[in-house]
């Protein structure tokens, strides 16, 4: 039987990995819906409402999955990691409380109006509700990333009798890694949504849908991705430099540097071997890692050997980092390749459609891989330098943890399959809707005038 510590870590990883998939979509999709809604309000053109109405369904489903998987998280702190709140509760507590008070209620309440209130509230209120939902999801991301960043780079506190006490809330909120992590995550969300929207829109067009709405959403998503993918590379690089400053052992694991060296090579691929503390089958570019991280060809990078007993396992961090960067580069290439063709010829080739369909959920993989880098890279600490993961774990017997873990995993697999299938089913159903249905309420006075135009939307 695995021990409670390992099982609790697997369970927490499973729950939070499942959870993060959905906010990653809703954070940016919320703002995309605001954009669609405002464009509709300004132009009164039904195509924007078409785009809104299709994607708001996806939003609703995703949001529901995010909410219910999030409730699990609020229980997990106490059930599996009592030591966390006992040690840093004075800091984590208020941050979590502010997240619930300022974000959760706002998004949950406004969601009702956004989804079902189109015909029941004034137009401006519906647009406002859409805006507040987007704001709520972003605020929620703000607070939870404050907490996570504080766990990586704790600041603004003092330890008294083994318990952390806040001394400076501004220093806690704007802790050293927060600005980088927050921008990195928001961009990750935006790119995930761009590729999801592009993928589903490509699926509809590839299947012979010749309406305007999917073409419009494809274009919006691809052009946005073409701008954001290089931005993300830049922000990611800054984030890396920040990590080098505050958590050098994480960088050592990411880059596979076992021993401190000057002019460290960039390891493109290798199999890190913890036994011999070397990389096997390494494919390297000389001196590049030093150049990227220290801006000096012969700059010194600290190796794992400098942190005995206080460094993360190398292999998972090393591999996850390569998955994240690999997908990021692929996204950049595909976004530019497709955007250029779309700009020049107005439509994509069948191959490009297929590639985009295949990459619909690529953002999920990159985001998860990125989180594995930063979270496993923080080990053996739960709060860097303050609290070790093994000191925070529950005393619940391992059989109970194992049993609940199996239940959660089985449920998550089923729900994930149902989610992906339902998204494509929604797309398929949208293809079959032939005309803009004028009996549907909510169109403005000009609806007769726009009816013909709308038929193609």
């Amino acid at each position: 039987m695995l021990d409670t510590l390992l099982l609790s870590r697997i369970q927490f990883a499973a729950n939070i990995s499942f959870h993060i998939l959905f906010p990653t979509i809703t954070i940016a999709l919320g703002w995309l819906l605001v954009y669609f809604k405002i464009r509709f309000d300004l132009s009164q053109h039904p195509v924007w409402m078409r785009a809104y109405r299709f994607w708001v369904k996806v939003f609703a489903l995703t949001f529901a999955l995010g909410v219910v998987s999030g409730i699990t998280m609020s229980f997990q702190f106490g059930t599996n990691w009592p030591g966390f709140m006992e040690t840093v509760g004075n800091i984590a507590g208020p941050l979590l409380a502010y997240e619930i008070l300022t974000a959760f209620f706002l998004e949950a309440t406004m969601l009702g109006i956004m989804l079902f209130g189109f015909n029941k509230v004034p137009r401006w209120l519906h647009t406002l509700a859409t805006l507040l939902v987007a704001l709520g999801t972003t605020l929620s991301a703000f607070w939870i990333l404050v907490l996570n960043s504080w766990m990586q780079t704790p600041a603004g506190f003092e330890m008294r009798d083994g318990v952390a006490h806040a001394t400076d809330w501004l220093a806690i909120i704007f802790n050293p890694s927060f600005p980088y992590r927050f921008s990195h995550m928001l961009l990750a969300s935006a790119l995930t949504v761009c590729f999801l929207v592009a993928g589903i829109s490509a699926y509809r067009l590839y299947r012979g849908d010749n309406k305007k709405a999917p073409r419009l959403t494809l274009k919006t998503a691809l052009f946005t991705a073409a701008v954001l993918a290089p931005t993300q590379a830049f922000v990611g690089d800054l984030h890396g430099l920040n990590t080098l400053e505050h958590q050098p052992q994480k960088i050592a694991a990411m880059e596979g540097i076992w021993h401190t060296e000057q002019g460290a090579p960039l390891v493109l691929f290798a199999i890190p071997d913890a036994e011999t503390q070397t990389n096997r089958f390494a494919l390297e570019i000389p001196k590049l890692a030093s150049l990227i991280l220290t801006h000096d060809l012969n700059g010194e990078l600290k190796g794992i050997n400098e942190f005995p007993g206080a460094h993360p396992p190398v292999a998972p961090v090393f591999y996850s980092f390569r998955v994240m960067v690999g997908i990021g580069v692929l996204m950049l290439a595909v976004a530019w390749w497709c955007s250029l063709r779309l700009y020049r010829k107005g439509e994509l080739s069948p191959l490009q459609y297929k590639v985009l369909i295949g990459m619909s959920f690529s953002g999920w993989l990159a985001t998860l891989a990125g989180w594995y880098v930063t979270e496993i890279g923080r080990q053996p600490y739960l709060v860097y330098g303050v609290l070790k993961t093994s000191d925070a774990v529950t005393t619940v017997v391992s059989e109970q943890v194992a049993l609940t873990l199996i239940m959660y995993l089985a449920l998550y697999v089923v729900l994930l399959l149902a989610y992906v299938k339902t998204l494509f089913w929604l797309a398929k159903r949208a293809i079959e809707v032939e005309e803009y249905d004028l009996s549907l309420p909510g169109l403005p006075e000009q609806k007769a005038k726009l009816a013909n135009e709308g038929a193609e939307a």
Partner: protein
Amino acid sequence: MSLLTAENLALVFAGLTALAVLLYAILDGYDLGVGITLPMQQEAWRDTAIASIGPFWDANETWLVLAVGLLLVAFPAAHSAILHALYLPAALLLIGLILRGVAFDFRAKVKPERKIRWDRTFKFGSLLATFSQGFMLGIYVMGLQYSVGSVVFASFSGLCVTAAYAMIGNAWLIGKTSGDLQRHAIRQCKLAGVWTLAGILAVSAINPLVNANVYQVWTEPPLAYLFAAIPLLCFAMFALGYLALKRLPLPDDRGAWLPFFICKIIFICSFVGLALSFYPFVVPNQMTLYEAASSKESLTIIFFGAVVVIPIIAAYTAVAYYAFRGKADGLKYY
């Protein structure tokens, strides 16, 4: 800020946590109740019943997050003691909530022939979540101990909470629907009401027998006279509710919201009764709320946030309820 002593803050946060639990029980209570007694006879009934809770369930569930969150941040030691003891039922509660939450959305979006499957999932998830809550309450009342007796009592408590949620859920439906479905809800509400009453009587009898502290609270004058008003009001409400349900539906739909209003009072009475029984303990007979409270500085900073934000939450919640007032109609996504 001399009023904000550590003791006062602990009391304020105990009050806030209790309020969040009460609001959760009433609000998610009615939408879980609609789920438990989801009428499987007709698809149109199910659509209307679910449409009636559509815009609200998400915010309702947030009160649970707030309640658990407040317990976590204000009384961390109690949070881990309680959830440690309730590990398995809490996991079942979460799985129930996950199932019903997603079923709610999936049912409207999957292929038509799959819809009934998600409706069943919705009903099952609601039932699992409700029963688990009642079971957890039962174990909590029994001092977080597991024995044959406490498990039997907790299972019974699970049934009582299921009946109570079914009662308030159908009372909500009476207000939100009309015609055959409304008459169906009236019958269901009456039935659930009888079981709820039986449950409350049984728990009131057993609780003082197992907890000496509780016996003392309810029998020691002069407060006992004051406390006696609570069960009296509660039982009066049951009688009034029974009379109302016998006469409903009335022409012009008069009094359709009366049962829901009565249910709310019954919930408040039961909850206040329970809370008084356990004061000042937050973990029964083991830990008082003063012992479990976290540091004063942290509570102060949350306190000011809560003072500013909770009225705002109340305001926009009122806007949402106003926007969706009246009978539930075919709810559509736009």
